[in-house]
């Protein structure tokens, strides 16, 4: 049984022009526990919506939200809100949101917020909670006294670590990380990625890392899924995707990264991702694809296994 | 960009649409008033009791009979300049006879009966004026008989009487009318109501016959008021005669205790309210925005001074000071507007300054500076446009505050007496006890008009909210008292 399996997930937002398809027919199975799945996409490709869909943290203007998410044999989408809250939310799956500086309530001490889930409701003593918060913060490389500070008193790097401590609180089996290092300097980014790696190795936590930076994903991800225009373009083990990408979009994405060593000049993708309110028929990448041909403009590309466990949605590989 | 959004957003939202429609309505009516009313409406008409003398006092609007079973007495005014009979030159036929026929069809007697006579000229001796009422039942009452005032010492013929001020007589209160009724009743066989009772309500007796020993029944039908003027010289003349059969209801909105047509006064109040609101708001916006721009962009000492001043002024409780200042400086419309502005600018200044500070350190301004753009250009092309939608929204938002403020001051008796406003009409009503006498038509419509006008702007502001909100809600204009 796969660790997690997402089937035909849809998430549409309501807009004045019609539904905006942020996630459309997303299916993938995340086989092994303790591994990290990277989801790569440009801005406006629907990657943040995907993370919210997995967490069932959908905003009010959503018009369509369907599909199924199988996790430990249970379909998360079929659970009632109360069941999901009681069994899954933060206990099995937790999340680190984009924009860490805004993840904390500005008027409550950081430590309280880290252990808040049990403080309110299931009830643990404030003293014990304080100790737990201190030790969690220590786990992510922060000093114990951070627990008694307010969010505005933390520096950028500290603010990035604290939400990770919060996500670890109930020892979840899966953490969804939405751009955990965006807007950070490379040096801090490397620190955070090291922290995540250690958590992965030491605690065996599975992670879904959502980012626009494929190079960053290579730092931790065992599997990589590439999305473009709300659709999954390619999915496979990191080795295949990074070294031997099959879909033209993935190839272009990799080529657009300027390499530190070697004289290969970066290439670029001109144009913008397609409009998600009225997407063209056929492949979502057609207008930017260098190897576009007839079928791409007519029908949706097939989902093909081009190598073991390496799937891609492209007409080029259809027989 | 946001300018266009502002308009499209206005059209989209419900309150916005209502606001636009109401605003168009207010403007149309105001234009009508401005073009049809005399410019000095206040002194020459509204505050001139002579204009309203013929109207019933404190009469409810005419349309209330739609809601009751009884038919109210209609208010009728007649005027004639052509006598049915004039002196022909023969010495024994020296008499003018004016006839005013009218119909009374109602379930109650008229509230009063009055007549007026104007522009009389005589040469020898003063004429004798007699007024008779001919009733449908053939009875005839002599209501009035007087001689016009004789020559004053030093005056020489022809003597002119009642040229500036007509002779006005409330017939239903005349001694002679009482006598006439008493005479009429004495001739009846049936028991009649006692004099103490009908004397207080003479019109009931004049326009009715005793229906029971307690009360009079209304006598409907055609009446005729005859005015005879006996003169001594064929050259003597009387130009105009007027009669008023007082009704119990009047016009679209009734009258006040002085008989003023409330509809007329209330209509005049509309352009005044808009003038107060928009002018005060415009000046306030102008002052507030300029100070904010100066304070934010120039910084330094100017900034410190403006900020301190804004801090202080914005913490002064407005109304007590407003009352005090108007009391000291006198109730003049412009003074009221200026004082309003003097205490209200800080809200906008603080808001604009905050925005300017943000913009000033932003890259758009820096880019413009790097291009060598002048300070004026930066302020007007790169800073002001960003603040414009908010400033505009403030303009709309402040307008009702100013209207309400003026209304409040007027209600305390501090309104500009030369310009009637809704607040003053309300004040007059409250002071003369309209509330306790149940004169609702005097109290509800002016308030409703204030609300309607204020709400027009509120709806406009509400419609703009989606565009303006994030920053507008931090502005403090709503603290204005009501």
């Amino acid at each position, binding site marked *: 049984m796969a660790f997690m399996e997402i089937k035909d997930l849809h998430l549409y937002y309501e807009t004045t022009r019609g539904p905006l398809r942020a996630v459309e027919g997303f299916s993938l199975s995340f086989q092994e526990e303790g591994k990290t799945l990277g989801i790569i996409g440009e801005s406006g490709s629907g990657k943040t919506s995907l993370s919210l869909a997995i*967490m069932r*943290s959908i905003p009010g203007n959503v018009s369509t939200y369907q599909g199924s998410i199988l996790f430990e044999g249970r379909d998360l989408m079929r659970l009632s809100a109360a069941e999901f*809250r009681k069994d899954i*939310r*933060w206990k099995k799956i*937790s999340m680190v949101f984009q924009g860490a500086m*805004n*993840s*904390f309530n*500005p*008027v*409550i001490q950081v430590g309280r917020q880290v252990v*808040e*889930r049990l403080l*309110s*409701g299931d009830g643990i003593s404030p003293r014990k909670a304080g100790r737990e918060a201190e030790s969690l913060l220590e786990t992510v490389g922060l000093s114990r006294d951070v627990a008694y500070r*307010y969010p*505005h*008193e933390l520096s950028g790097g500290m603010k990035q670590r604290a*939400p990770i401590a*919060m996500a670890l609180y109930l020892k979840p089996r899966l953490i969804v990380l939405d751009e955990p290092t965006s807007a950070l300097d490379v040096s801090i980014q490397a620190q955070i990625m090291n922290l995540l790696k250690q958590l992965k190795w030491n605690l065996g936590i599975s992670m879904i890392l959502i980012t626009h930076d494929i190079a960053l994903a290579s730092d931790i991800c065992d599997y990589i899924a590439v999305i473009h225009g709300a659709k999954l373009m390619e999915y496979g083990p990191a080795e295949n995707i990074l070294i031997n990408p099959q879909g033209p979009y993935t190839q272009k994405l990799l080529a657009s990264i300027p390499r530190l060593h070697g004289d290969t000049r970066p290439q670029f993708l001109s144009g913008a991702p397609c409009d998600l309110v009225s997407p063209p028929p056929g492949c979502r990448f057609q207008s930017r694809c260098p190897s576009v041909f007839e079928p791409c403009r007519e029908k949706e590309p097939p989902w093909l296994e081009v190598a073991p466990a390496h799937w891609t949605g492209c007409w080029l590989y259809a027989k | 960009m946001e300018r266009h959004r502002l308009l499209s957003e206005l059209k989209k939202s*419900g*309150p916005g649409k209502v606001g636009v429609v109401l605003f168009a309505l207010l403007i149309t009516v105001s234009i009508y008033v401005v073009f049809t009313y005399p410019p000095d409406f206040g002194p020459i008409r509204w505050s001139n009791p002579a204009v309203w003398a013929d109207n019933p006092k404190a009469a409810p609007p005419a349309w209330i009979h739609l809601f009751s079973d009884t038919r109210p007495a209609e208010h009728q005014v007649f005027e004639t300049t052509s006598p049915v009979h004039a002196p022909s030159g023969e010495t024994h036929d020296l008499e003018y006879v004016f006839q005013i026929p009218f119909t009374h069809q109602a379930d109650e007697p008229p509230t009063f009966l009055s007549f007026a006579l104007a522009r009389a000229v005589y040469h020898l001796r003063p004429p004798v004026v007699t007024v008779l009422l001919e009733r449908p039942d053939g009875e005839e009452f002599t209501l009035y008989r007087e001689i016009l005032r004789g020559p004053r010492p030093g005056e020489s013929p022809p003597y002119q009487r009642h040229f500036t001020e007509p002779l006005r007589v409330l017939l239903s209160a005349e001694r002679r009318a009482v006598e006439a009724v008493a005479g009429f009743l004495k001739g009846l066989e049936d028991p009649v109501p006692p004099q103490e009772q009908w004397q207080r309500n003479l019109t009931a007796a004049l326009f009715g016959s005793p229906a029971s020993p307690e009360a009079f029944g209304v006598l409907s039908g055609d009446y005729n008021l005859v005015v005879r003027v006996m003169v001594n010289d064929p050259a003597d003349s009387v130009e105009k005669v007027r009669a008023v059969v007082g009704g119990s209801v009047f016009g679209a909105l009734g009258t006040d205790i002085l008989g003023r047509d409330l509809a007329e006064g209330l209509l005049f109040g509309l352009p005044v309210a808009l003038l107060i609101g928009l002018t005060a708001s415009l000046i306030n916006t102008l002052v507030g925005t300029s100070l904010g721009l100066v304070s934010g962009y120039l910084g330094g000492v100017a900034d410190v001074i403006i900020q301190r001043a804004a*801090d202080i002024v914005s*913490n*002064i409780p*407005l*109304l*007590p*000071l*407003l*009352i*005090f200042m108007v*009391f*000291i*400086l006198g109730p003049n419309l412009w003074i009221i507007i200026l004082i309003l502005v003097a205490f209200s600018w800080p809200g906008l200044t603080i808001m604009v300054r905050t925005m300017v500070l943000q913009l000033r350190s932003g890259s758009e301004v820096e880019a413009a500076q790097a291009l060598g753009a002048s300070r004026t250009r930066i302020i007007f092309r790169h800073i002001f446009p960003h603040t414009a939608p908010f400033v505009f929204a403030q303009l709309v938002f402040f307008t*009702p505050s100013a209207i*309400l403020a003026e*209304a*409040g001051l007027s*209600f*305390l008796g501090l309104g500009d007496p030369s310009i009637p406003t809704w607040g003053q009409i*309300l004040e007059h009503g409250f002071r003369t006890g309209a*509330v*306790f006498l149940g004169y*609702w038509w005097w*109290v*509800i419509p002016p*308030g409703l008009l*204030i*609300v309607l006008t204020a*709400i027009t*702007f*509120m709806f406009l502001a*509400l419609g703009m909210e989606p565009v303006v909100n994030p920053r507008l*809600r931090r502005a403090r204009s*709503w603290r*204005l*008292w*009501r």
Partner: protein
Amino acid sequence: MVRGITMVLVLIAVQFLLVISLGITGLSDRMLEAVIGEELRALRPSLAETIRDPDELEYALRVRREELQTSYGLDRPWYHRLPEMVSRVFTLDLGEAHTLRSFTGSNRVADIVLERLPNTMLLLTTSLIFTAGIGIAVGVRLASKVGSLSDRIVSYFSAVSYAMPAWWVGILFILLFSFRFPIFPSGGMYGTPPPPAGLFRFLDLLHHAFLPIITLVLASAGPYIYVVRTMTLDVAQADHVTVARAKGLTEKVVSRRHILRVAAPPIVTGLVLGLAGSLGGSILVETVFNWQGMGRLYYEAVVGTPDEMVIVALTFMFTLIYVIARMILEVLYVILDPRVRYQ
């Protein structure tokens, strides 16, 4: 710190504004002359009984006039006289009224003002508490269902309530509940004769206070609901609320701890700023309902027989109430918002 200084400056500025306008326009002199004239007129008949000689009478009156002028300080220009008055006001020595008297007949301004103070505070605090309660309860609820029918209805209500002059609403209430359906008294604070002290007297007071309080609440609750709704909405859309929900906190905890708690400072600000409105509104509402409070007194002191001592004292009191409220706000801010604490 800076705030505190500003508040004191406000007090001073208002007083000086008052004094300078009283002085420059010559109003102060005129008012005092009128008072002296009044006293002399009252004196004349009694003097005339003892002093028969008209010349001597005039002389005696002249002497008395000069005495009075000196005692009122009219022999000195206003810029000497009035600042003294202000400084006395600051030490809460409010002096004596020229024409107004307290209910007990005292002419000390402090007596006059202080016996009115509780009456005004009764109206203000009660309506403030109701406004706060209604505003927060309704505003927060609405913020959770923006765009719903009830949200739209209340938004319209807020706009209408902002656009309605409170005093006019008061008049309508009188028309409706005192005249058409005589349920409540139309004005005053106690019935005539006032019931004996004790429970009945208190109930009578409540009966009389009902309409004025409802009027004030109706006028201020509408806009306040809207402010609370907007402020709450603003916070409700913040990222940390999404995070709190994602953490699996119950909706109650989310709205109490993560929305209301964060929105509290601006919500409290809104309330205190609204007080400024009620303060002004109370003058009008007290006038309408003939409520013997400071507002009514102010109206009488300005519009009736002008009494500068009372005007100055009352303006000072109004400003003082507001300034105290602002100070409390500052303290609350420090408690409510840790970001302010560390600035």
